[in-house]
């Protein structure tokens, strides 16, 4: 798999406090990578590092295979766009002028792409209205438009739906999906609004205490969160034979436990196991959401 961003043991310390503590992660090309963590977990710090706003204390990262210590990293950043914390826009300029300004920064020779960009983010009718008079959602969309000015293929969004109203959240979600599907833009999106993230992300990275606790694809997460019956038996090989005979989908977890992904009749299963010479010790229904998965993952103390 090709990765847009990889980090290796990335650390950042501020006066005795470790915001990132040996973080290692990989963002696959073409994905929408949901970066999940509590406030203060280190999400924004990582984004600041990969955007070049701060330098790591130790460790490194690479963008499109170019290491952060190499000189070429500045060139590779040209392929990136980012909205870090708040939208980076001049409040005393109009939406069009903000884009014109960013086109100059990027050295784009023509302003011809500005109307298309404004249309893409739904700001084509703002005319001479200054950005300071925009709603939060409009500012956020303008921030994304500025980030898209250089036609990037990697977009980094830090808490893009924070403080938005329901319609604003839907607008941003649809925009991100559109950018990912139509323009094949890889998106790294940090958020602690898990429900929203679950509608977007194709991959997840769970961060806690400055470290990645778990990294998995949406499919893997779906499997992990799928409604199932967790059974405990004396012999999982016998269980497998019984479930195969019943035509049920399952996953063996270890020598004594398995998850069964079907509507199970306990009496029927118990009889089938009895026929295989195996005992059913316990059965527990499991139904995890992204939220409960996250809480289970980072809810306790240390994850070392």
């Amino acid at each position, binding site marked *: 798999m090709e990765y847009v961003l990889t980090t290796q043991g990335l650390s950042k310390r*501020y006066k005795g406090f470790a915001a990132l503590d040996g973080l290692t992660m990989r963002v696959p090309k073409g994905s929408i990578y949901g970066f999940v963590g509590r406030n203060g977990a280190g999400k924004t710090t990582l984004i600041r590092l990969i955007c*070049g706003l701060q330098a790591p204390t130790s460790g490194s990262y690479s963008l499109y295979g170019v290491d952060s210590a190499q000189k070429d990293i500045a060139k590779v950043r040209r392929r*990136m766009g980012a909205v870090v914390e708040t939208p980076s826009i001049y409040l*005393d300029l109009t939406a069009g002028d903000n884009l014109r300004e960013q086109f100059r920064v990027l050295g784009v020779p023509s302003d011809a792409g500005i109307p298309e960009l404004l249309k893409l983010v739904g700001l084509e009718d703002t005319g001479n209205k200054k950005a300071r008079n925009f709603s939060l959602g409009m500012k956020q969309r303008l921030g994304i438009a500025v980030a898209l000015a250089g036609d990037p293929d990697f977009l980094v969004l830090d808490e893009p739906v924070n403080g938005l109203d329901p319609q604003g959240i839907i607008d941003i979600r649809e925009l991100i999906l559109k950018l990912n599907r139509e323009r094949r833009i890889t998106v790294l999106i940090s958020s602690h609004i898990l429900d929203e993230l679950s509608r977007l992300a194709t991959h997840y990275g769970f961060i806690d205490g400055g470290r990645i606790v778990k990294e998995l694809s949406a499919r893997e997460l779906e499997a992990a969160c799928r409604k199932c019956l967790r059974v405990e038996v004396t012999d999982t090989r016998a269980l497998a034979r019984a479930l195969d005979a019943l035509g049920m989908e399952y996953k063996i977890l270890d020598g004594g436990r398995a998850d069964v992904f079907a509507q199970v009749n306990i009496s029927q299963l118990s009889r089938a196991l009895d026929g295989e010479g195996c005992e059913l010790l316990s059965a527990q229904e499991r139904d995890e959401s992204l939220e409960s998965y996250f809480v289970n993952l980072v809810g306790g103390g240390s994850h070392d």
Partner: protein
Amino acid sequence: MTKLLGAGFMRLRKTNLIWGSLGVCVGLGALAALGEFQFQVSAGADLSVPEVVQAKALLEGQFFEYAAFIGILAAEFISLFLGTEYSDGAIRNKIVVGHSRLSIYFANLITGFAASLLCMAGYMLSCLTVGAPLLGWFTKPAPLLLWSIAGSVVMLAAFCAIFTFVTMNCSKKSTSVVICLLGVFVLLILAVVVNGRLEAPEFITGYEMSVNGEIVNAVPEPNPHYLTGLEREIYQFLYDLLPTGQSLQYTMLSFTDPVRLMGLSAAAAALFTGAGAALFKRKDLK
């Protein structure tokens, strides 16, 4: 860096701050000339007589006033204009797309300097346009005037380097504005104090009075506050080094060694730019 300069100048054109500052300078230039004309007329001076104009050097007196306040204007303009890069977060857009911190620093320095220079030119042109017909043309030697203009440009570069140093290394716009404005006034007061010490007369006249109150003798005595030797040299160096000290000298056309003043300004500009760029390069941005 040319891309960043293009972006900086575009924003400069779009911001009200530059037009407001330029307007203030143009207005001050015209007001200075008009005010002087009215003062002279009310004092009964006949400005149609060439000898009167020659003796008073009225246009010079007003034309070089810009040197006294251009530092204050640069402090206000640079801290507000460049501080917006932080307050609006727009500085991130430049770094994220791969511009080096050095080029961002230098582009901002040049933009701030160019804008301050424009304001200075605005004052000079308006003062000249209004003042020349009312107060007569310059009467002092042309080289003196040219040295003063050239020197004040380099002095302005030193001011801009100092304010860019502060603003680019301070993440809060309000703090930058306070530091720059407070700083320029402190430097101005310091320059006035130093100038006061340097201007102290070598001798003061002592008076003796008789018993009936009449002054019977006036004897010049050495002034204990008169600076001599190394102390005087230090004060003079400080007066020449401080951009605000230079601004007083250019305003009053009292400088004796313009090359030395320009060299000191250039050195100060280089020092603050080097230190500022080095600090900014290592600064953690949010």
